[in-house]
Structure formats: structure tokens, C-alpha cells
């Protein structure tokens, strides 16, 4: 009861503050609770930790910058939940966040967690912003509360394909034959199926498609087959550890294709890999989530992350951006109300510029940001550069790889 009174009073104060003078006591505006859901234990803990980091940095930045202005400078209070790397864990945390009275939830990382958690949130018309989860099923269920700022699986694979053709054409079509190596989960298998259907239409020949489990204990046989097939291009789609194994094994086996072109790869856009195995990583390309290198904020955020002795992974900027999206919608909604927030999220447009992803003007259709897209990166001189599309690139592609 007491809590309610405080809330109501500060709401009045806050509103008065906005009307009268912006300098009125901001500290009294009630904090807005934001649920951050990430798997920080279990199989997905690495992604979860880096996702949480991004959300935390965004929240700190918002609070340091005066909170949500439209709510009288209300601070954002993080309500963190560990999804335990499984859907049940995600659902149970959503329930707790609901009981805590969060205004929205951001995160989930893996598609199964996002699917279950967003559905649980939909019972309460609680806005849910997916950070990564690429399954296209997430935004095709007609759930009004569910939004995804980043690209879905179909968009990523199509972009990967288009960019590959463009890259190869621009270099004078050096590559024709391809070997696909993929993890046997959602990303890898779907990507392999699509590439197998599309690559032949675009003048490539798929010599072999090799699926491997996660975790994989050994990549020597995969390397062996690549060596015997001598493809121009190797297209891998795997999680971090498996791709590192593959890249190192290929290096050891002296396999040097004209290009290693990854799709949604866990390692090719990871500075740990670049730092620890510069030779194996050199010139590897990836079509993946990646922040916009031309935004000053990107470099600033990266410095903050590296100051904490952490590596710079896409999870961090994506969660940062997703939290910024919610903050932006809160500003436009003008009240910490779920229905208003859902409306505001759905109405987000190009005026939302606080994210650091290389996307065009934001536009949501059925919860999916139409501008969400992957970019192509390449490891060059121990750094990860964006090479495609040209609008966001900060380096020229080195392709075909010679020597």
C-alpha cells in the first residue's frame, strides 16, 4: 500500500516536473523495472554473460544520462533472470519478473528460450524484446508483445547468399566449388538446407555438406574431407569452440581455400579467436550480427567492455541496442505502461538512433524490425572489419585469399 502511494505521488511530481521545470527532483521519480533474461549458467552461459553485459552497460548509460526524461528522469532498474540455458528456466524467470512488476523484458538469446519466454510474457501483455534468437517462428506467431530488433534466420541467410555472390562477382568469380560445414542445430542445419537449394542457381557447385554435432570432439575428419575435395570456398556455420577447432585443424593440415566464408559463426566475429589464434583467424569472413563500426558509440562501448577484461562479441551491442530501443519507446510512450509501451515499440521509426547496429531506419512489421540485417566481417590485421554492405563497411574485402 505504502509503495503504491509513493509511486502515485512521484508520478504526479514527475509530471509536474516535466511541465514546470526539468530541473525538479528527478531522484523521486519511481524507477522503471526492466527484466533482463539471459542464460548465464549451463550450455549457453558464454552468450548469456555477454548479453547481460550489453544490457547492463545500456542501463548504466541511460541512468547516468538522467534516466527516462518523459517519466521525470526515472531510473531503469534491472531485474535480472538466469534462464539456465533452457526454456523452462526462461518461463519461470518471466513469471518472477512479472511478479516484480517489470515494464518489459529484453533478451533470451537462444530461440527455444525466446519462444517460450515471449509466450509466457504474452499472457500479461508484457512487452518482450528478443535480443538475438533468430528462429523465424518467434515473430510468426501473432504475439503482439514480441519484438525482434535484429534480423531473423531467413534474412541472415539470404543476405549471406547475396553478399557472397556480390563478393565473388566483384573479384572476378574466382570461386565455383563449395564445401559447407555446419553444426547440426537450428542455425547450421537451416542454413545448409538453404545454401544447398540456392547456391547451384547462382553458379556454385556444392561438393559436400558436412554436419557436425555440438560439442564436437574432433575436426580432423572434416578437414580431411575438405582437403580431398579441394573446394574454392569453405562455408562454415558453427559455434565458437567447434569453429576454432576447425580453423586450427585446417591450418595444421595446410588447407588454404580461396576463402573461408562463415555464416552466423560463433568464432569468426569473436576477438578472443582473433587474439588467441591470429594465424588461423586471418582473413576469415563472416556474415553475422555485428555493430556499426562508423558510430562513435560503438568504439566507446567496446572500450568499456575491454576495460572490464572482456572480449567484444556481438551479444553485447545487440543487447545494448535492444535496451536502448525499450528506453526510446518509453520516452515516446510517456508512461511506464505495458500497453502504451507495446504501441510505442511497434511505432518505432528512423528517429530511433541510439542503437549501434548497422541497420537502416527502424520499422516494425508484426514485431520484426524490417531493417534488421547482418553484415559481412573479415579478420584483417588482427582486427574484425566490416567489408559488406558498403554503406557500413570500414575496410575492403581481401578476396580471393592467395598464398
Amino acid at each position: 500500500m505504502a509503495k503504491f502511494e509513493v509511486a502515485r505521488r512521484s508520478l504526479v511530481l514527475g509530471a509536474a516536473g516535466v511541465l514546470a521545470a526539468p530541473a525538479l527532483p528527478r531522484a523521486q521519480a519511481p524507477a522503471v523495472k526492466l527484466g533482463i533474461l539471459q542464460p548465464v549458467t549451463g550450455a549457453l552461459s558464454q552468450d548469456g554473460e555477454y548479453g547481460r553485459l550489453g544490457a547492463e552497460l545500456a542501463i548504466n548509460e541511460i541512468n547516468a544520462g538522467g534516466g527516462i526524461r518523459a517519466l521525470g528522469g526515472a531510473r531503469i532498474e534491472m531485474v535480472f533472470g538466469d534462464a539456465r540455458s533452457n526454456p523452462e528456466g526462461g518461463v519461470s524467470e518471466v513469471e518472477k519478473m512479472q511478479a516484480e512488476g517489470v515494464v518489459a523484458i529484453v533478451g533470451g538469446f537462444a530461440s527455444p528460450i525466446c519462444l517460450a519466454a515471449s509466450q509466457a510474457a504474452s499472457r500479461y501483455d508484457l512487452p518482450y524484446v528478443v535480443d538475438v534468437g533468430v528462429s523465424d517462428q518467434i515473430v510468426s506467431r501473432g504475439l503482439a508483445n514480441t519484438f525482434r530488433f535484429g534480423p531473423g534466420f531467413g534474412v541472415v541467410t539470404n543476405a549471406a547468399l547475396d553478399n557472397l555472390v556480390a563478393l565473388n562477382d566483384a573479384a572476378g568469380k574466382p570461386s565455383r566449388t563449395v564445401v559447407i560445414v555446419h553444426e547440426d542445430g537450428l542455425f547450421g542445419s537451416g542454413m545448409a538446407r538453404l545454401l544447398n537449394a540456392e547456391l547451384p542457381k547462382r553458379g556454385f557447385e556444392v561438393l559436400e555438406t558436412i554436419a557436425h554435432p555440438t560439442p564436437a570432439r574432433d575436426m580432423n575428419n572434416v578437414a580431411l574431407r575438405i582437403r580431398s575435395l579441394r573446394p574454392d570456398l569453405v562455408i562454415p556455420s558453427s559455434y565458437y569452440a567447434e569453429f576454432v577447432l576447425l580453423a586450427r585443424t585446417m591450418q595444421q593440415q595446410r588447407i588454404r581455400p580461396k576463402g573461408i566464408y562463415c555464416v552466423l559463426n560463433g568464432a569468426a566475429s569473436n576477438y578472443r579467436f582473433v587474439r588467441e589464434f591470429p594465424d588461423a583467424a586471418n582473413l576469415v569472413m563472416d556474415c553475422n550480427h555485428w555493430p556499426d563500426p562508423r558510430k562513435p558509440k560503438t568504439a566507446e562501448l567496446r572500450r568499456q567492455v575491454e576495460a572490464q577484461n572482456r572480449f567484444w562479441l556481438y551479444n553485447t551491442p545487440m543487447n545494448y541496442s535492444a535496451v536502448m530501443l525499450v528506453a526510446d519507446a518509453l520516452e515516446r510512450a510517456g508512461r511506464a505502461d505495458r500497453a502504451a509501451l507495446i504501441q510505442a515499440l511497434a511505432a518505432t521509426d528512423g528517429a530511433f538512433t541510439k542503437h549501434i547496429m548497422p541497420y537502416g531506419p527502424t520499422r516494425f512489421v508484426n514485431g520484426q524490425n524490417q531493417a534488421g540485417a547482418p553484415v559481412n566481417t573479415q579478420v584483417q590485421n588482427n582486427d574484425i572489419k566490416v567489408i559488406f554492405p558498403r554503406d557500413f563497411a570500414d575496410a575492403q574485402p581481401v578476396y580471393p585469399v592467395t598464398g
Partner: protein
Amino acid sequence: MKAVLPILAFAVLMGLAPLMVASNVVLNFLVFTLIIALAAQGWNLLGGYGGQYSFGHAAFFGTGAYVTAILQVRYGMNAYPAFTAGIGFAALVGLVIGFLAFRSGLRGSYFALVTLAFAEVFRVLANAAEMTGGAAGILIRLQANPANFQFAERGTFLWVALALVTLALLATLALERSRLGAQLVAVRENEAAAQALGVDVLAVKLRAITLSAAMTGAAGGLYAQYFLYLDANIAYGTWISVEALLAPIVGGAGTVFGPVLGAVILHGLGEATKSLAGSIPGIDLVIFGIVLILVVRFPPRDLPGLLRLRRRA
């Protein structure tokens, strides 16, 4: 009749929860715990009463779950017959695995590991097959309507899950008092002696594993209806094999209430330690592990009050 009373008391008390507790945090916790308890009750029939420790009950859980989902999504079947068919298929899988394993005389660790291997084969196949949606998984359309075995209120689902668990408890009690139950316990205590007394050991084990698989399969179907999404690692993952065996062992294998008690203890413990979690991930699970070992060292079933309830049940 006296033995049925604790079960009814449990059903009534638990059934009151949705009326007394408004918190969906609690209701969701109870529903998930009941689903695990049902899976564990299945394991208990075979492992607790029959002494055949399976490490692969995921094979049954997953089959129940996948059949429930696939019949709805791919064949447009209504959820209830799909759920029933899921139980049937799970029982069939149990019968086949049981036939192969028991006919070869596999016991103890060998039986445990062969069931584990079967579950893994199912997992790999489900991850690759078209029918199951492969790695992308299978999504049951959200249509919260009792006609679709989906409920707008978590409390309603709790009653459904509770009804199934109560049925399972009654079935376990009936089994305990049946000829089959006595034979099963005889097999557990001394297989050779049971055989000498004229018990058809293979037939007894087969019946037990079929019933066991059906029960765990029902838990799988419930899971599918509750979360509406499955993939191979959820349905056939080792996590559920471990859950199904952990609960009865903690709560008391070969007793009617063991699995329910164990599921409540384990999941309650999990929630309790989770609330202790600081900012460092993993610490809460470390505490969970330590408490788990302490629970084994000082079993709650040695606590006098619980002892009476359990033994008389």
C-alpha cells in the same frame, strides 16, 4: 481405503493451490514440478519397484512429447487424442526397448547404459528428421482454449497436471498391491529366486517398462502442451532422464510418494538456492550441489514425520 487417503489429501491440498495462491510464479513452479513428478513416477515403477535403473527415460518422455506435438501440427489432430496417442507410442517404445534389453539379460549398469544409448539415438534422429522439425524444433500453435488442451490460466493447467499425477499415484498404489507389483519387487530383490518361484521374469519386466514408459510419456505430452515448443535436446535430452531418476531416489525409490516428494524437494531446493544467487553465475548451483550431497547424507525421509507418511502410503 486407508492407503488412498494420503493421495486424496495430497490431491485436495495441491488442488487448492490455484484458489489460495494468486502468484503465477508459484503456480508455474508447481506445474513444472508436477510434470517432473509424473515423469519420475514412471521411472519409479521400473526403477523403484523393479530395481531396473534406467538412464534413458528421455526416450519415453520425448516420444510422448513429439507424438503429441506432431499429430497436432502435421496431421491436424485434436490435442487430446494426440496426447493419448503420445502415451501409446511411448509405451510401445518402452516395450520394444524393454524387449531388446531384457531378452538379452541386461541388468544393472548395463541396462542403465543401453537405455541411455537408445535415448541418444532418438535424440540424434529427432534432430535430423523432417517429421520432428529437425533442429528448428516444432511449435504447437498457441490457442488458449480448453478444447485444445491449452489453458489461459496456469491454475487450470495445474489441475490437469495434478489429475494426471494423482492418477499415477493411484496406479502406483494399485500396482504395489497387485500380483504384478509383488512379482516386480521379488525380481528386484532376487531375480534368480523369483524365477525359481515361477515368476515369468521377462514378462514382469516388460509390463513394468511399458507402464513406466506410458507414464513418463504422459509427462512428455504435458510438457509439450505446457510449453508448446520442442526440439531434440528438450525432448530427448539427458536432462529429463536425470530428472526422472533423481526425484525418486531423493524422495524414496519404490514408494508411492517418493517421486513427488523428491521432485518437490529438488525443485524447491533449486528455487531456494537460486534466490541466493549473487552476481556471479554458477554460485547458486554450487550451493545446490552441496545441499544435494547433504540431502543424500541426511535424507529427509529419515525425518520422522515424513517417514510415517511415506511408509504408510
